[in-house]
């Protein structure tokens, strides 16, 4: 089969898997929604009607197919808590999450690549040891601890008191920067240790290859070696790292950062749905993010081909 076609087929199987798991966990095994939707003293007919609407009288396979069809046509239903359409909630909150998480995600990776290059270039020297030691230290600090510490140090009278403690009133660029700084710093600090360590290992591996030795023998300067030969040939692991950290860093990170700082993004919506057991919201967020990530993986596979002609 052709490469893109094979990847698309592979992605389709993954989509079936992630939707199946979220269906089984949240719809099939999930709590009965009948009495959440009905008031007290419902008649037997009302109960039967709601159960029919929810599909509780349908067989397993039929309900799963309905779930997938609803997910792909974005008929996500209304939130139990607010009654608002889930698709509208997501359309409102997704841009906030993106604006919140993107700077930290990009900076965390760029700084990780820069530090990894610096360490790999002076492998075994004190620069390398310092950077590697700090990476392990960073990996040993909990996300929650970093958020709390930065909030105290930067946003309260006990520290510098420069930024808002919580909230998200963004109207223009200065207010955006004012609100986004502390969350961005948290995200960078939390990911930097892992990123630096990973990128350093990639660069050290690449720098020990024969073609690097040959280039050095031909008199390439250390800077040219690092930029042109090592960095360029490490693009495949870099792309993999960036793409595959999206669900962990961006989605899980937004869950924690938004619920902690009270920022109205998808993460906060998911957090509220978790705490209140709001099934329509929860199943939409889980299903859609998993499907989106499968699409990202397909895109990654196609990107490999652009940077590495050997991939087939």
């Amino acid at each position, binding site marked *: 089969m052709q490469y893109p076609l094979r990847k698309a087929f*592979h992605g389709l*199987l*993954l989509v079936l*898997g*992630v939707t199946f*798991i*979220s269906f*089984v*966990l*949240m719809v099939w*095994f*999930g*709590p009965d929604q009948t009495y959440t939707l009905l008031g007290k003293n419902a008649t037997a007919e009302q109960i039967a009607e709601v159960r029919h609407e929810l599909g509780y009288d349908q067989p397993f396979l039929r309900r799963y197919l309905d779930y997938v069809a609803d997910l792909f046509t974005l008929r996500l239903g209304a939130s139990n808590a607010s009654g608002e359409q889930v698709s509208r909630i997501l359309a409102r909150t997704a841009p906030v999450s993106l604006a919140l998480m993107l700077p930290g995600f990009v900076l965390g990776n760029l700084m990780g690549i820069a530090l990894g290059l610096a360490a790999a270039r002076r492998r*075994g020297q004190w620069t390398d040891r310092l950077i590697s030691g700090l990476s*392990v*230290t960073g*990996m*040993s*600090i*909990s*996300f*929650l*601890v970093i958020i*709390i*510490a930065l*909030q*105290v140090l930067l946003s*309260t009278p*006990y520290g510098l008191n420069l930024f808002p*403690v919580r909230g998200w009133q963004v109207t223009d660029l200065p207010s955006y920067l004012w609100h986004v700084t502390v969350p961005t710093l948290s995200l960078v600090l939390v990911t930097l240790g892992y990123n630096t360590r990973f990128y350093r290992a990639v660069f050290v591996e690449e720098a020990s290859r024969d073609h690097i030795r040959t280039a050095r023998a031909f008199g390439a300067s250390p800077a040219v070696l690092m930029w042109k030969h090592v960095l360029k040939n490490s693009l495949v692991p870099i792309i993999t790292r960036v793409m*595959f950290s999206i*669900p*962990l860093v961006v*989605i*899980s990170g937004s*869950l*924690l950062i938004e*619920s*902690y700082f009270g920022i109205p993004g998808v993460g906060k919506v*998911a*957090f509220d749905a*978790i*705490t209140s*057991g709001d*099934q329509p919201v*929860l199943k939409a*967020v*889980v299903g859609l*993010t*998993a499907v989106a*990530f*499968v699409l990202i*993986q397909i895109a990654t596979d196609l990107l490999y081909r652009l940077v590495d002609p050997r991939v087939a």
Partner: protein
Amino acid sequence: MEPEGRIWRRLREDRAGLAGLAVVSLFLMLALAVWLGLIGQDWSIAAGGRWEPPSPQHWFGTNILGQDIFQRAVYSVRTAFEVGLVVAVLSTLLGALLGALAGWYSHGWPDGAILWLMGVLDSIPFYLFVAAVAYALQGQPWAMHVAMIATFWTGTSRLVRAEVMKLKTREFVMAARTIGLPDLLILGRHVLPNTVHILLVQASIAFVAAIKTEVILSFLGLGVQDGVSWGLMLAESTQEVLAGHFNNFLAASLMLFVLLMSFNLLADALQDAFDPTFDPKQAAQ
């Protein structure tokens, strides 16, 4: 596999790793002492006033409810080891088992099925997966463990699969096959024991990941249900720090940091000691 003597010698020469091992052992003894009921038993009693400063009665002061922070921080060592050990052992075993099956029958249907399952599990954002599991299990205290085990095994499994695919072509496996030993016996007796170096390192990584994850999950309300943990203490402290009371936050985050750092150093030392290509002299240059 490296001769065991050389591995021990390398471990003994790794000072950071040894320090890590010493601190981890100290924490383990604390956990055992809590288990045996020797210390940390008064973690839930509100024995003092709200936010008392450190004193001979309350070494780290008291929290918002007047509970002793030292008792809570020490009892949490047991919680951390419970979560860490259960998740590390079970997820590593599961990863070894499925990874070995996939590697042994590589490019057959068991391999395809296991690879597909790993791809699926890796595609669902982790905290949302935990939320979904917790939702399905409806507040079961084990929901957190189940979710971590169900996702953490994939990393181990990929490494074991690759290693088994390599081992499968080695002479001693061929020999075992030639004399007609059943597949499962060869796998269990001859192949899996040769992946122990991967399993040890992966288990220590899973231990660290489980404790870190517990903190986040407890803050999100999906973690420890009965008892106390550093995650629950940190969740409490989010209200306290805004009022200027840092004892709860400092106690939980410092103990958490020391344990995680020691375990990370130990895991690094294990990895270096088992790595046949790693040359300590070259790394020190």
